């Protein structure tokens, strides 16, 4: 009844708190602290962390970087899109635009690459399947992550940020080859 009535004590603040609540608050607080410390812990000991490297950019400038990479390392074509095989350790560029991920990348297993990602127009979602790594790709910003594929095979980049009527047609590919 008093949940919707004024408290029975004028000075309700100084009413003692039950043991059960105190114990629960203690347990919950410890758990909350553990959850907090897991994040810095993973930054130090975990292998899946985003770098903080990002740049402001614009569509023509980023496109020029992509085109330069395609011109240097193109090894084939699929569905009208170039397949690019950049050397391990190099800067690799992929762009999202309405409605494709460009170009197709061919990477080597267990080699690391500096993968640059940006959008030419709207927000896109870089969702690497079936690995299930998901990144937000924001126009005007170039994100750089160091990625080291540890499985070989065919991987697909699905767009998982709504980007208009062709959103569900927007796919890209990353092939990882055994070395």
């Amino acid at each position: 009844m008093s949940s919707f009535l004024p408290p029975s004590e004028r000075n309700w603040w100084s009413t003692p708190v039950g043991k059960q609540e105190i114990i629960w608050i203690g347990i919950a607080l410890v758990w909350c602290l553990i959850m907090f410390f897991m994040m810095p812990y993973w930054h130090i000991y975990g292998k899946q962390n985003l770098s903080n490297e990002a740049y402001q950019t614009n569509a023509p400038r980023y496109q020029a970087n992509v085109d330069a990479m395609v011109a240097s390392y193109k090894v084939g074509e699929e569905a009208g899109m170039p397949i690019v095989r950049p050397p391990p350790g190099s800067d690799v560029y992929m762009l999202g635009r309405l409605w494709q991920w460009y170009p197709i990348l061919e990477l080597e297993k267990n080699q690391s690459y500096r993968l640059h990602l940006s959008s030419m127009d709207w927000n896109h979602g870089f969702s690497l399947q079936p690995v299930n790594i998901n990144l937000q790709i924001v126009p005007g910003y170039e994100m750089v992550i160091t990625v080291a594929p540890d499985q070989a095979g065919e991987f697909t980049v699905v767009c998982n940020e709504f980007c208009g009527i062709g959103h569900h047609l927007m796919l890209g590919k990353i092939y990882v080859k055994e070395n």
Partner: protein
Amino acid sequence: MAQFRVCPDSGFYFDRSAESLMKANAVAGAVSLLIAGILALGVILTRWQEVHLLPADMFYQVLTGHGINALIFWIIFFEMAILYFASSTLLRTRIAAPRWAWLGFALMIIGMVMNNVAVLQGNSSVMMTSYAPMQAAPHFYLGLILFAVGALIGCFVFLGTLVIAREDRTYEGSIPLVTFGALTACIIAIFTIASGAIILVPTFLWSIGYIGHIDAAMYRVIWWGMGHSSQQINVAAHVSVWYLIVGVLFNARPMSEKVSRSAFLLYILFLQLASAHHILVDPGISSEWKVFNTSYAMYLAVLASMIHGLTVPGSMEVAQRAKGYTKGMFEWLRKAPWGNPVFSGFFFSLIIFGFIGGITGVVMGTEQINLIIHNTIYVPAHFHATVAVGTTLTFMALTYLLIPVLFRRALFLPGVAKIQPYVFSAGMTLMILFMLGAGTLGVARRHWDMDFTGALLAFEYPGTAYTLMAVAGIGGVLGVLGGAMYLVVTVGSLLFGKKLDESAGLLQGFGMPLAPSSYNVEQPERLQMAPKLAVEQHGSAGFEAPGTFALALALLVCFVVYYFINWDYLSSVWPLS
């Protein structure tokens, strides 16, 4: 002229203007829920790949309308009714500036209609989030702005009403806990609307050509200052309603006023930059910022919810035990009124909000774990557990209380009302759990076609994903059925329910006050403080609510296990640095 009436069943006093405002806002909320529910059917039957009902353009349009009507219009209209109830009714006072309140209501209606028209016209299928530089029609944004201004006026009317109650000394001591919770919701709402104004006003000006460029990253940061904080309004509001319901049904008193109020205070202090949860995998934002702003080093907002998770059912258990339901750990719960939709709706919402919504929310709000969850269908699964079951089902349960108390009507089809929370919860839980599973397999949210028919490159999700989405579809349809049952009962009650008072006519329910003779109280008696307990229970050596404590520990175990399962899953994906 007397302007108050007293409800003979509940003893609540209603100020005539406040009563009409509550009714009008509740009805407008129900209309929004109707729209949202119909659109939900379109969404779920399209995502169920074997049915795949709607064409792509219509799907994105329907999804936009569903999100805005369900998450914004339905909930905020209903919250306005709650604010007026928690101030005017609970404090037995006249409402401040009723004309301003009506102006706010009118703006909200205009905004809602304008926004819905924009979506209906088809050139504003930009999703609820409307991420710039994707652009909607100007009246899409203007509608939202007008709605927000209207809601802001409502917030100030609420605050003004608290001031009047204090000046007129309509109550003894401090404001009740439920009003305190509503005040929390109101304060968060003001912050939320400010964030909304900061981002939507420039976006509106951009849509009509006065501003050349909206930075896409900035838009996301500030928009979520509104988008996420508005969910904290919901949490504060529905937790307040939980306290109200256990008070009304069980005469429960808070286990400790200090603990429950401090927990509400934590919501205000530690939720405000919750937009961080939405930009964990965005470029240009540092890890330090992300880690700190998702958690403030110790997750004090999560702590607040964990506290309410103990104290709400705990206060019910204490009250039930005092009535003699003391056998074993759970007699207090077994002997609860499971046939009363006010109780069952409240209790299911509590459990599903805590066990599913809460746990998944914290897990996906962890900086690195977000990598395997961001923008998958796991995300809508999470917020359906928090908002569609947590908030919406709580408001449904409250409606069953308000129909006799506020609208003075007997429930129409009480048998349907009785099972409604069961149908709705079962359907939604099924949908949520299977969508969580599909999200873990990488299925994208806001996506028309799992088959990618017509794409230049091909991709197939695993077969299991299709099965999961189909079961989610069945759950969703059941959930929509539960929602429809709610609307049949409420609208039916207002139209055909037996009148419990002399009526002012058919429209009595829809915002009209009752017949003048019902208002026979000049000024209610001053609201007294709750009676003191004969025996001080607090601080006693024993556990007052052992059953609740066991439930809380069960929650913690699920939480810990599930949290580390997700770290394990994360550790299996490609190394990134």
